[in-house]
């Protein structure tokens, strides 16, 4: 095992030879097959970053095939705030020939290709890259003994990365111990050996330098947590007092239901794996009706199936949280790719006029907070709330400040207080909270909550006036919420040339795009919407401060040239300066793509429509 004194010598030698290059951040892409455990490497690095001074963001693709298939994991680590997973990789670590061939395009010029000499034969004539051949498989097998096959290659690579980037070996050893101890002594010992072997590989014979992260400028006295978006959302639901739920397996939603199934019993809760999506939403509504605010979720195909019951929740005014971890559509679409094409479905899906709340978290940390917000709104307004996450957000790991649970946790218990004799579920003049069964009502006029149009007491009626009044009652709840929610802050330029508007997981790349543009002296601002339905009040005023407004989203430009949010914002504000930057390649936005999109559009500016004075 590598001891601290070995490390001291190593660091001393490095300093002496002057072969250390200080870097702000690095993008490492690991390319292999899904069974190689490359995501383990990524999560160790992410966890290490959370315990060190670095910030981190990861990005991964997984094949939708059952066993194996090419898979990548990209980690970006840096000393400042890391906002996106990086447009290009500085390092590509290729396990196989196909990994090399597929992903060499992602490596920047001058970048380093680390490859397994056993499986990869790179084109060494291509002088754009630095080539580092490492017998990854051979050395791992040799180190761990003949029976190990090639398991452990990932940990070998982790050791190699630790060496190249001068990472904290002690902390990595601790992490290995914590994560693997429970899997048996043998597993841990093998991992330690593989790690140390990777770390000991004399990579300096091939590359002429080591790297050292700049000391961080960020204030890191608070403790950090490291997790992916699905987990953050799950823990947020628990913090929001959600103790019941039901779901059906579908990628990429399943990890949320798996975690809830495992975690909720501790909290006295229950999660049911239902026979289908229809039963899942119905069970969840049963829980909610009984006073236990519940969650159901899915990806697009399952959300389509839940739509009838969602309409019932709107009509009957029963709270519910619906999580949609969006993937590429339509139909079965691209199960393991990202898209933001379910916004219209979230806002308008289901028949009839069915106002419901739609929220979208902007990053992993926000997944936690938006889930709590959804739980609060669902109860207060007795209404379904849809949370639009997506595949990229669900699977990427970020480090963020540990939330202050004391101030955040909501009470899970149902409100079973007595109701007065004149209690009615649907009064026209005021908002009500659902009265679950078990609550005593003086005089015994117990209500029926219903999907039929009804009068104030819940009796079915087709009275034209009442239908109009009840439609208004359901609509007005959203208008009240719109008054309550804060107007989002514009970051970057507060007025000027271009305002980017985004929602959901595009937050990071948009922030970075604005930083980059502003560093070149351009007047770019960024507005990110977390509340998509209802929209906050006052957007018109913000929009009028910019010459052009570009809505950036991962969906199709549609028949008329506008993405889904862009279309809604144009309808809302009648502002023709709003235009669209969209894409549907199933991958997250690169910063470059956003800026190129902006350059393309600004060429034909429709400036005369804007209220902004030139």
């Amino acid at each position: 095992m590598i001891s601290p004194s070995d490390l001291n010598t190593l660091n001393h030698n490095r300093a002496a030879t002057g072969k250390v290059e200080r870097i702000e951040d690095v993008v490492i892409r690991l390319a292999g097959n899904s069974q190689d455990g490359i995501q383990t490497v990524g999560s160790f690095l992410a966890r290490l970053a959370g315990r060190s001074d670095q910030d981190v963001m990861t990005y991964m693709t997984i094949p939708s095939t059952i066993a194996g298939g090419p898979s990548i994991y990209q980690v970006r680590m840096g000393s400042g705030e890391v906002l996106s997973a990086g447009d290009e990789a500085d390092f590509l670590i290729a396990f196989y020939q196909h990994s090399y061939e597929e992903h060499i395009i992602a490596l920047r010029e001058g970048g380093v290709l680390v490859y397994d000499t056993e499986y990869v034969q790179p084109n060494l004539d291509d002088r754009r890259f630095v080539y580092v051949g490492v017998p990854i498989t051979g050395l791992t097998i040799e180190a761990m003994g003949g029976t190990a096959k090639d398991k452990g290659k990932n940990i070998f690579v982790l050791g190699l990365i630790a060496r190249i980037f001068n990472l904290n070996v002690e902390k990595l050893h601790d992490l290995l111990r914590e994560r693997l101890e429970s899997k048996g002594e043998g597993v841990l010992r093998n991992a330690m050996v593989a790690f140390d072997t990777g770390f000991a590989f004399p990579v300096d014979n091939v590359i002429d330098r080591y790297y050292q992260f700049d000391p961080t400028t960020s204030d890191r006295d608070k403790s950090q947590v490291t997790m992916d978006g699905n987990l953050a959302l799950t823990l947020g639901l628990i913090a929001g007092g959600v103790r019941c739920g039901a779901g059906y397996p579908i990628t990429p939603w399943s990890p949320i239901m798996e975690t809830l199934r495992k975690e909720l019993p501790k909290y006295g809760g229950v999660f049911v794996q239902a026979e289908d999506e229809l039963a899942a939403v119905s069970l969840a509504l049963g829980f909610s009706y009984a006073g236990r605010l519940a969650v159901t979720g899915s990806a697009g195909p399952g959300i389509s199936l839940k739509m009838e019951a969602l309409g019932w929740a709107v009509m009957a005014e029963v709270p519910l949280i619906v999580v949609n971890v969006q993937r590429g559509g339509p139909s079965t679409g691209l199960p393991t790719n990202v898209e933001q094409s379910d916004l219209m479905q979230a806002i308008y899906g289901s028949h009839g006029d069915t106002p419901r709340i739609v929220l979208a978290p902007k990053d992993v940390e926000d997944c936690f907070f938006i889930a709590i917000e959804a739980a609060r709104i669902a109860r207060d307004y007795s209404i379904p709330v849809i949370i639009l996450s997506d595949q990229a957000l669900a699977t990427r790991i970020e480090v963020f400040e540990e939330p202050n649970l004391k101030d955040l946790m909501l009470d899970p218990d149902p409100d079973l207080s007595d109701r007065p004799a004149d209690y009615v579920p649907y009064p026209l003049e005021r908002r009500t909270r659902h009265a679950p069964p078990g609550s005593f009502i003086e005089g015994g006029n117990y209500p029926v909550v219903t999907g039929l149009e009804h009068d104030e007491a819940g009796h079915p009626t087709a009275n034209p006036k009442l239908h109009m009044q009840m439609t208004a009652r359901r609509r007005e709840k959203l208008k009240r919420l719109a008054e309550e929610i804060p107007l989002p802050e514009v970051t970057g330029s507060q007025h000027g040339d271009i305002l980017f508007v985004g929602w959901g997981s595009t937050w990071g790349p948009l922030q970075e795009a604005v930083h980059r543009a502003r560093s070149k002296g351009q007047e770019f601002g960024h507005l990110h919407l977390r509340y998509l339905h209802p929209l906050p009040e006052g957007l018109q005023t913000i929009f009028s401060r910019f010459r052009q407004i570009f809505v950036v989203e991962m969906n199709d430009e549609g028949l008329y040239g506008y993405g889904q949010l862009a279309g809604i914002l144009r309808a809302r504000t009648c502002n023709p300066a709003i235009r669209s930057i969209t894409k549907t390649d199933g991958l997250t936005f690169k910063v470059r793509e956003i800026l190129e999109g902006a350059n393309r559009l600004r060429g034909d500016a429709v400036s005369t429509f804007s209220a902004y004075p030139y």
Partner: protein
Amino acid sequence: MPSTTDSPVAESEPKREKLTRNMLKADRPTWCPGCGDFAVLAAYYRVLEKLQIPHEKIVTVAGIGCSSRFPYFVKTHGSHFIHGRAVPFASGVSLGRPDLRVFVFGGDGDGFSIGGNHLDHGARKNFNLTYVIMDNFVYGLTKAQTSPTSPLGFRSKTDPSGAVDQPINPMKKLVTSGATFIARSHASQVKHMMEMYERAIAHDGFSVIEILSECVEFYAGAFDASIPRKGGTFELIEEKKGDGSPEDEHRHDVCNELEAYRLADLPWPGIFGVFYEERRPTKNVLEAELIGKARLRHNGSTDYDLLKATLNHLK
């Protein structure tokens, strides 16, 4: 939350008057005069009155159909849900709140057609609730289409020359689904319905009663063969008494699944009573056990402690 012992919801028992039929009567039923569902409703009032279940703890749930209008006619906490999904909805109510007594009412379309799969899974999971299926062999609310129980040759608006699709045998479906209490009754037999209601309520688990309930508008006379005053026979299942008598040999053992299936195969109009009853842990109890074990492992931890520990693990 599922709980084997006390309800987690602390509440003081409100002072209440004795529950009477009149307190349970709500809107005037909108069913056609002569509809069998009136009797099913009347029997429900009488059973609730007899059993004195606390008024606010009774939940009446239904899906869509003529019979699914039921909750409007009963003054209890109620829910008129969507077509075919009343069983999973009611399952959520039951699992979320062990202190409640959950009833589901519906018809043959709701239960055997659009909601057929939910019936199977609700039964297999053995949620603790009582499900009353008012079977009239026809779609009534939408006015005379073929139902999953319409017999071959039945002329409807969707089968003008007579139904051609093999109908479902409700009792066979229920036996194979894994329901833990299965009974068959008749809307013209109020005393028998009440007895079946009571036994279903006493049963811990997924209890189902199929009640033949005539649609006088679209399938008049459908059940004449089982109405004695119309010349039919209303034959009851004789259950084993365990008295060791030679007659007892031939009586029905309600624990015998194969025997129940054989009874379900008897020629029309078949036989009435309890086909099957099995004691199997309910979903409610199984989940409560999971909670109990998890709670024991984290003895005395508050929700805050638990979530904080999870966050610590993610550092």
